[in-house]
């Protein structure tokens, strides 16, 4: 579904992504794991058109979307759940969902109902300004907002960041549920343990390059990955 070929991206002279290639098969969950500064977020931001790549290709459903505007890319069925949630704090919860469906011309009231079923908490807070929600609720809203565009591919940038373990578990349950409904998911995580558990495929990024690739389960058991990302949990948390 999504194919990335030899992608290179630089920001103001710093090469953040140094030629990575991977594929996201239809209806799968693929995860990119790696430390801060490995180039994970940059990759997602490039796919969605917020950053222009230096070279390389992004192919989506056999269509070259490299360097296209975000508007056009999103219209093709890709959406992003950004790092740090970035819901619109000055809009109500309901409006945030409506803005997720901004490009849609059809009736989306059913989908709002569906998102509210998925996250009953959001329904309770429908008329509240999104800025007043708790971190976990904001993450639910960010996911709900992304779902409103009826995407074929959702890219999630560290949905577990700064959330309580129980909330994270809930979010990951939802990710699996969305995937079962046929939505393809590209997931970025520092929480490698959780991410690899839900993922069909994983790629380990290190300073702009893919260092390791494999099935989720394989990577979980990989000695290198264990040492670097899974072994010392406390250390990893402290880094966050």
């Amino acid at each position, binding site marked *: 579904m999504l194919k990335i070929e030899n992608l290179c991206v630089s920001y103001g002279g710093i090469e953040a992504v140094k030629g990575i290639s991977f594929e996201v098969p239809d209806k799968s969950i693929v995860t990119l794991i790696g430390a801060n500064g490995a180039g994970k977020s940059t990759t997602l931001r490039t796919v*969605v*058109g*917020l950053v222009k790549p230096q070279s390389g290709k992004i192919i989506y459903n056999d269509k070259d979307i490299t360097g296209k*505007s*975000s*508007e056009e890319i*999103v*219209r093709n069925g890709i*959406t*992003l759940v*950004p790092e*740090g949630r*970035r819901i*619109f*704090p*000055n*809009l109500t919860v309901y*409006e945030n969902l*409506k*803005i*997720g469906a*901004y*490009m849609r011309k059809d009736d989306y009231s059913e989908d709002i109902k569906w998102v509210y079923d998925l996250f009953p908490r959001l329904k309770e807070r429908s008329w509240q*300004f999104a*800025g*007043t*929600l708790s*971190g976990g609720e*904001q993450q639910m809203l960010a996911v709900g*907002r992304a779902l409103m*565009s009826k995407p074929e591919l959702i890219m999630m940038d560290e949905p577990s960041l700064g959330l309580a373990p129980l909330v994270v578990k809930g979010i990951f349950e939802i990710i699996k549920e969305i995937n079962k409904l046929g939505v393809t998911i590209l997931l970025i995580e520092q929480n490698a343990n959780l991410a690899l558990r839900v993922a069909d495929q994983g790629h380990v990024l290190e300073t702009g390059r893919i260092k390791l690739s494999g099935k989720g389960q394989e990577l979980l058991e990989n000695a290198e990955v264990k040492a670097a990302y899974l072994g010392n949990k406390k250390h990893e948390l402290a880094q966050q």
Partner: protein
Amino acid sequence: MTLELFLQNLANGIAVGSLYALIAVGYTMVYGILRLINFAHGDIFMMAAYFTFFGVAVFHLPWYFACIFVVVLTAGLGMLIERAAYRPLRDAPKDSVLVSAIGVSFLLENLATYLFSGKPKAFPDFLGLMSTVSLGTVSIQKVALVVPVVLIVCMSILLFVINKTKLGMAMRAVSKDYEIARVMGININLVIAATFGIGSGLAAVGVILWGMKYPQVSPLMGVMPGLKCFIAAVIGGIGNIKGAVLGGFILGLIEVMLVAFFQPLTGYRDAFAFILLILILLVKPTGLIGEKTTEKV
């Protein structure tokens, strides 16, 4: 000090305040969405005065058509300025855009001087609002009665657009996070252009009524109102539309009352606005009802 005199000045103050409010909203809307102080706004106001002059005194358009003509043309000018001078700098540092705005301001002033000469022209009384009416013992200029009504109508429409329509929702979203707004599929160029159009259109409505009160059109007529309305927007809390209206009223009322009841201070009328600006910035830099910051990071 008689009651009549007070009422007369009160009406006058409300009228001036409403005019300030109409212009200040343009500043605040642009700031809200681009974090840019559009220093050309006062000169857009000036150009609107010339559009009115030409529409009415030269081309003799009927009054209703002249009003539409001026508002549409001014909105177009605002959008053109955004397209030509600000959009190419969308990803540049904020200072560059600010300098560009100052450049546009000088450009418009000099263009007007060149095209229309520096000699002031008389603003036509095409709405018949310059004459005064007597209400009991109080005599008021007709325009002073009309201005607050126009303000209320314009603000009601504006708040409706911002709070209830899809465009308004997009404007609010873009003002908070234009990158993510883009990811939602919002055409931010369109939204920003609309913001400039609306702000400039409101300035045009302001100038039509302003001209009835101060019937002189000259290339530098926009400088002082521009600065004062910027101050009004800051007093209320820049970025906040209700704040701009509040700031306009405060500035207008105090100014008029100061001149009316402290005659020796008349010469300081304009200086007063700046003193108020400094005071507000010292005491409450976010303005009286400045943006709430409830964002969670």
